[in-house]
């Protein structure tokens, strides 16, 4: 008997194979024009002059070491802090768990500049600080750990632990010998993703590191924008790319194991009142929640206070024009919303098409390769992409460089991997026999997509759209490059404000951060209420 799930699809009429190929060509074509081409152009531009000169500079290796070191430290902190939350999300009957999950998620989608500013406000320092960078990066990614690990944890049958306890294992022993091994795929997957995010973190390092602590990402930015040292930037991009590929490979390996283990059924009675030492974990989770709230509160307080006392000067200044900004803060917010909306529908189109192609391809290697190719934008410095656009896109008809769609294009590219990683696991977990059933009832291949796959993935699509939207809102690396001066987005405006001295400018920057944070948090709360129980990977 053959009872395949997921991987093996029945034979398709020849036309469908052609459509799949066409879809693949479309997706990869977009990726080629708006990602590969600009990136390769930048690399070639840089590599014309010597690599060895850059590689032999001790400075380069210091930066590499710091990049990896801070990413590793941040990952460890995020894992340690995320585990208690994962436990609470998966195992403890908390009232209004959706709200809790939303609160945990807010930091993850906050724009990097906002987080940088929030930690600056919290620690009260303007001095560069490596620890602030590590804490801020961890702050971001605790949600990734809590959700990825918690999602799998909730699906583990708690009776396995009960059995271990029944056989004489203490609570810690049972956790170490039963729960932890079962969670390993999610842990690896989370660690790889967090490491990836931390090693390419940009805004946080820019704000908190000053000139002293530099990572590959900020260095690429500085070399390109400030020093116009393209060869240096290109070599560093290559270095970063290699590191990212390694992290992605680990993530893909862990992910495959997880997707194959994923069942759509949620174990009954998975949550129960904690007892004994479990309260320690709950208390730890509470402490983590407070720690997550602290920078946000600090940012709020800082935005309405100055050296002389409480003030709304920042907000007042934001609503007018003049100063360093060409437009008012509200106008910048409006620009952000518009660009993010455009980026979201583009990324949805591209991402959904990519997911359909990825679940239609029959060749395993083709699937793996395409899956990996679609994840690449995660790993390439957004700065590189942005700069690449400026170098290449004038070749295309209808000069895109002056088009208002340029920023959304770049943002769409950044959020498409996110969209895919949210929708794809759900599509992959649909039992192939449900599709077979639809086929025997007279539904053709594309009808099955519409009638079975899309409705089942519906909530994942909503989630993907929401997360994509908020990430696009906060995107700065590429946007900072491409936004026209007369139409800055909020992050671009914030960056401009930080760069200027003066109490009022700082005050305005904090106010703008609060504005961006409120928009983001609001979007997350809306998504969470619509969201399916089954989380994707981020």
């Amino acid at each position, binding site marked *: *008997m*053959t*009872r395949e799930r997921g991987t093996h699809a*029945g*034979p*398709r*009429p020849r036309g469908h194979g052609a459509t799949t190929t066409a879809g693949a060509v479309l997706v990869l074509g977009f990726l080629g024009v708006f990602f590969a081409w600009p990136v390769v152009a930048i690399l070639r531009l840089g590599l014309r002059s010597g690599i060895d000169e850059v590689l032999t500079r001790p400075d380069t290796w210091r930066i590499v070491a710091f990049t990896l070191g801070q990413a590793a430290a941040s990952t460890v902190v995020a894992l340690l802090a995320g585990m208690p939350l994962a436990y609470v999300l998966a195992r403890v009957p908390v009232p209004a768990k959706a709200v809790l999950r939303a609160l945990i998620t807010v930091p993850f989608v906050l724009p990097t500049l906002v987080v940088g500013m929030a930690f600056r406000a919290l620690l009260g320092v303007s001095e560069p600080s490596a620890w602030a960078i590590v804490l801020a990066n961890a702050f971001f990614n605790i949600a990734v750990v809590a959700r990825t690990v918690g999602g799998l944890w909730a699906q583990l049958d708690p009776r396995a632990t009960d059995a271990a306890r029944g056989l004489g294992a203490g609570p810690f022993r049972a956790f170490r010998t039963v729960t932890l091994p079962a969670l390993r795929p999610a842990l690896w997957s989370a660690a790889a993703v967090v490491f990836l995010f931390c090693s390419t973190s940009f805004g946080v390092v820019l704000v908190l590191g000053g000139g002293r602590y530099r990572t590959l990402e900020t260095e690429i930015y500085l070399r390109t924008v400030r020093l116009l040292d393209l060869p240096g930037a290109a070599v560093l991009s290559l270095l970063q790319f290699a590191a990212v590929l390694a992290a992605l490979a680990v993530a893909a390996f862990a992910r495959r194991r997880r997707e194959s283990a994923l069942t759509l059924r949620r174990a009954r009675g998975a949550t129960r009142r904690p007892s004994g030492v479990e309260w320690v974990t709950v208390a730890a989770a509470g402490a983590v929640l407070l720690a997550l709230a602290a920078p946000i509160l600090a940012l709020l307080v800082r935005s309405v206070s100055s050296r002389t006392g409480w003030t709304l000067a920042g907000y007042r200044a934001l609503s007018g024009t003049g100063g360093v900004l060409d437009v008012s803060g509200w106008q910048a917010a409006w620009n952000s919303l518009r660009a993010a909306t455009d980026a979201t529908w583009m990324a949805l189109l591209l991402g959904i098409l990519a997911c359909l192609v990825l679940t239609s391809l029959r060749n395993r290697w083709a699937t793996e390769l395409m899956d990996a190719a679609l994840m690449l934008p995660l790993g390439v410095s957004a700065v590189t992409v942005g700069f690449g656009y400026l170098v290449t896109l004038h070749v295309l008809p209808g000069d895109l460089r002056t088009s208002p769609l340029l920023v959304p294009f770049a943002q769409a590219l950044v959020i498409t991997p996110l969209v895919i990683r949210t929708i794809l696991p759900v599509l992959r977990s649909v*039992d192939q*026999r*449900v599709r*077979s*059933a*639809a*086929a*025997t*009832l*007279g*539904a*053709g291949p594309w*009808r099955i997509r519409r*009638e*079975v796959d899309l*409705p*089942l993935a*519906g909530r994942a699509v909503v989630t993907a759209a929401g997360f994509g939207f908020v990430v696009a809102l906060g995107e700065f690396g590429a946007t900072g490059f491409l936004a026209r001066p007369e139409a800055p987005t909020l992050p671009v405006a914030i960056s401009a404000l930080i760069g200027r001295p003066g109490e009022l400018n700082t005050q305005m920057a904090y106010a703008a951060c609060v504005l961006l944070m409120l928009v983001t948090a609001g979007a997350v709360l809306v998504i969470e209420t619509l969201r399916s129980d089954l989380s994707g990977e981020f």
Partner: protein
Amino acid sequence: MRAALGDAETGPVPPPTSREREEGLRLEGLTVRYGSTTALSGVDLVVPRNEVLAVLGPSGCGKTTLLRTVAGLERHSQGGISFDGVDLSRVPVHRRGFGMVFQDGQLFGHRDVAGNVDFALRMRSVGRRERRETVARLLESVGLAGYQRRRVAELSGGQAQRVALARALAAEPRLLLLDEPLSGLDRILRERLAVDLARVFDRASMTGVLVTHDHDEAFTLADRVAVLMGGRVEQLDTPWRLWHRPATEEVARFLGCGTVLTAYADDEAISCALGSIPRPEDCPTGPVRFGLRAAGLRAVRSTGRSGTGEPRAVVRERLHRHDHVRLTVDVPEDPGLGELEAVTAHGDLAELGEEVTLTLDSTGVAVIPEKSRSRDSVG
């Protein structure tokens, strides 16, 4: 039909109807391979219209593959599939007009019961009112009237399977394929649903192929049964003949014959080491084999009844069943027979180690034709 008919000794298969050549499902030399493994090899089967064929076999015998290939969900590497004389090899699943009921329902979780049942009608752009009426009628016919708005997740296993059946029937399929439709259900529910299914088939004059590993299910629902083993059809017969005249030892063992003995048929009777039964008319004379089910041997305490010439055995194990006691015995005088199963009544219980007398009961004896190529049988 050659392989399906088995050898001449099995006796005649029920006469094929005259329409058989043009109508219904026909599989010719159907072969399915996955890489280097062969799931089906050279299967020939014909299912005339208005007949239900059960494909019976142990797990891994290829029966689900057979069904999926007929549905168009698997590609075959050799041979042909046709319906009413029309070749289906190039026809995709959704245009074959076959309905399928999957093992555990595979209902659409995102639709309610009515949304599941009217799926096929929507695929054919049937109007809303007609859909509503058809759904109501179908749900009533499977005993779920008024369940339209129920969520699929709220259904019990039996109800889900009924909805799956209604959903498949809504397409008015010219052939209904059922993949172990009852195997996920508990025993009582399974029996009740099997009877209901049989009724639905009867009323609708259904043409169908049912795949199962459970012979009760096959015998209840099917007109003819094909036994599939190792990707080949071992025997195609009516339920009665399959049970009483298995074509090979493997089939006999699969159908519950724990012991196979050599026997000889003369004009009057068929005899083996444990006794004889009257020769049925359809059995030719000459060497044959017996397949013994537990009910084929009756054990009686031999105390005080000696010298009748019947074989004596010693009780090794006792197992209480609902209406009889099953004994495991061995025959000291003929150790070659090994352990045998026999039944005895509750009233006359032999102790462990006690001697019993064995008699053959023809209702529990299957007659298997002797074949030169077959392995040596036990005893």
